[in-house]
């Protein structure tokens, strides 16, 4: 089996004392040429996981490894190998510099080429993602969100990294533009063999782009498996509820939800529960669930679920 390029192993992050862990004991493995989707409701810790993998927040437990060896978040190896794309296209560029300057910046930081060569390379890279030289001369607030996100991809790939961490890269875009960006990312995966972490709250996007999907709930990983499996045959009750909630465009689809979450517990903070963090909402919860937190276990080959009573599609 392939070895992962980049991993977060049993990582936990805490923002300040007195807060519960934003993410607890999360393991993410990224393989070359493979996109791992990360889904879950807002506040469940997706961005924190991404920020931890980028070394933007310190880990309170766990570690990062690159090519199998532990790597310090400030290591320059990490900086060249792991790049990122953020949610808000315009906000991820310095508003006072042109897109071209910003895209050439990684080359300058890593001391590659002369100013002129860097410019050429940046223009090449921008052209590859579909940004014209004329657009590149503009500032981020003078171009559309789609153009900006293309430039962000150019900046992220100009150093030829091995890993791309994308935090909601298409969430701010309209569907027609979103599809353009997804196509571009899929190309990068196949042409450059990039490993990607792709965060989205849109299950459709993840289902159509990713190879594997991980589902997070209240700071923990609750399910992981092939993207088609998670979309078509989710086993964790939360994943099932999540999939059920998507208003499908295919009106002929069966509508009956497979799981009804318990009402009246919306405001319960799962992170503070002693056992399973989904227990307050889960219709299948038993005393066992509130007593001990379930751990991720392989239910089928390459399909892991953290649940004492996984959902059974055909009872």
């Amino acid at each position, binding site marked *: 089996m392939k070895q992962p390029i980049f991993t977060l192993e049993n990582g936990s992050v805490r923002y300040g004392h007195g807060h519960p862990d934003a993410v607890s004991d999360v393991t993410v493995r990224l393989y070359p040429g493979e996109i791992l989707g990360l889904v879950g409701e807002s506040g469940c810790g997706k961005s924190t996981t991404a920020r931890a993998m980028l070394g933007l927040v310190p880990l309170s437990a766990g570690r990062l490894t690159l090519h199998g060896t532990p790597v310090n978040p400030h290591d320059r190896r990490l900086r060249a190998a792991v790049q990122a794309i953020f949610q808000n296209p315009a906000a991820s560029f310095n508003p006072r510099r042109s897109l071209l300057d910003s895209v050439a910046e990684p080359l300058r930081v890593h001391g590659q080429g002369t100013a002129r060569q860097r410019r050429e390379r940046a223009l090449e890279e921008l052209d590859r993602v579909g940004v014209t030289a004329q657009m590149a001369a503009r500032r981020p607030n003078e171009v559309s969100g789609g153009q900006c996100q293309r430039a962000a991809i150019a900046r992220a790939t100009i150093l030829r990294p091995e890993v791309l961490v994308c935090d909601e890269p298409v969430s701010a875009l*309209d*569907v027609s533009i979103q599809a353009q960006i997804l196509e571009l990312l899929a190309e990068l995966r196949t042409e450059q063999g990039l490993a990607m972490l792709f965060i989205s709250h849109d299950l459709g996007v993840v289902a*159509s782009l990713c190879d594997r999907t991980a589902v997070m709930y209240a700071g923990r990983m609750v399910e992981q498996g092939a993207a088609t499996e998670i979309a078509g045959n989710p086993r964790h009750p939360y994943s099932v509820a999540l999939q059920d909630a998507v*208003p499908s465009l295919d009106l002929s689809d069966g509508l009956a939800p497979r799981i009804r979450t318990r009402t009246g517990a919306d*405001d319960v903070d799962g992170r503070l529960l002693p056992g399973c963090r989904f227990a307050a909402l889960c219709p299948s919860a038993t005393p066992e669930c509130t007593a001990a937190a379930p751990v991720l276990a392989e239910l089928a080959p390459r399909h892991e679920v953290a649940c004492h009573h996984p959902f059974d599609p055909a009872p």
Partner: protein
Amino acid sequence: MTDGTLLSIKDLVVEFPTGAGTVRAVDHVSLELGYGERLGIVGESGSGKSVLARTAMGLTRPGTARISGQVTIAGHPVLELGERRRRALWGREVAMVFQDPLSALHPITPIGEQIAEAARRDPRTTRRQAAARAVELLETVGIPQATRRVHARAHELSGGMRQRVAIAMAIACRPKLLFADEPTTALDVTVQARILDLFDQLCAEFGIGLVMVSHDLGVVGRHTDHVAVMYAGRIAERGPVRAVFARPSMRYTSALMAAIPRHRAAEQSLPRPIPGQPPNLLAPPPGCRFGPRCGQASPRCHAEQPPLLALGDAPGHEYACWHPGEADR
């Protein structure tokens, strides 16, 4: 449409004069909605959905925009009414739910008081009745322990709960028509599903007519009866939801449907992008607004604006396209 017309929009044009030129945000739009019916307005951002909804409700101030055309809500000619009479409609005949519930809620007044205040827009309601109604409304919109929750403040509630409170305020005086502008866009899917169910329930139970504005075709498809697809300020296609989704005929509709990622497709496939970008409304392309991005565009498309034509499959299904079809799907 049965039962007479609740909302009628005729030939509505809304233009904003700006420093760089005039933006025509709504371009000759006509729509009708019967009592108790649900209409979805979909389109990408900037297509004019919000301006259309706000203007229909009488919220667009004539000072900032040039408005022409007619809007009638339950027999009231909204655009002709004076400020005072128009305000009298709000809450009692028509109400609106926004994307961000915080914009509708006061930060420190307890939510019960705010709902009671909304209920008192109807002058026949006494203070005591209004307070009782607040509790009743909270229960109606699915907030448990309503007698306790009336004392809560907006910031103590989750996003979904806040949106429920905003909905309670909107329906406090039993309006006949409810506009909802991207009411679930800021919410998680699981919460969104429950809010959408609530809209369904309210429409069925109280016979409220609903205009739901959304960029999400799935949301509209599942929770409305009729749909109007907007592109660059114009109606691209409209009709009964099932008919439009089953046979998208204007090329933008079919392209849009193909651009939406499917989450439970049997086989994994990427959504199909639409090339280019939506037009700059300061200098829209001549003829069909979708022309520059359309694979089927002919010289006629670039010269002449296609009119809305009826399609035979279902009454009311109309599309604006010279070369209709669903070959893109």
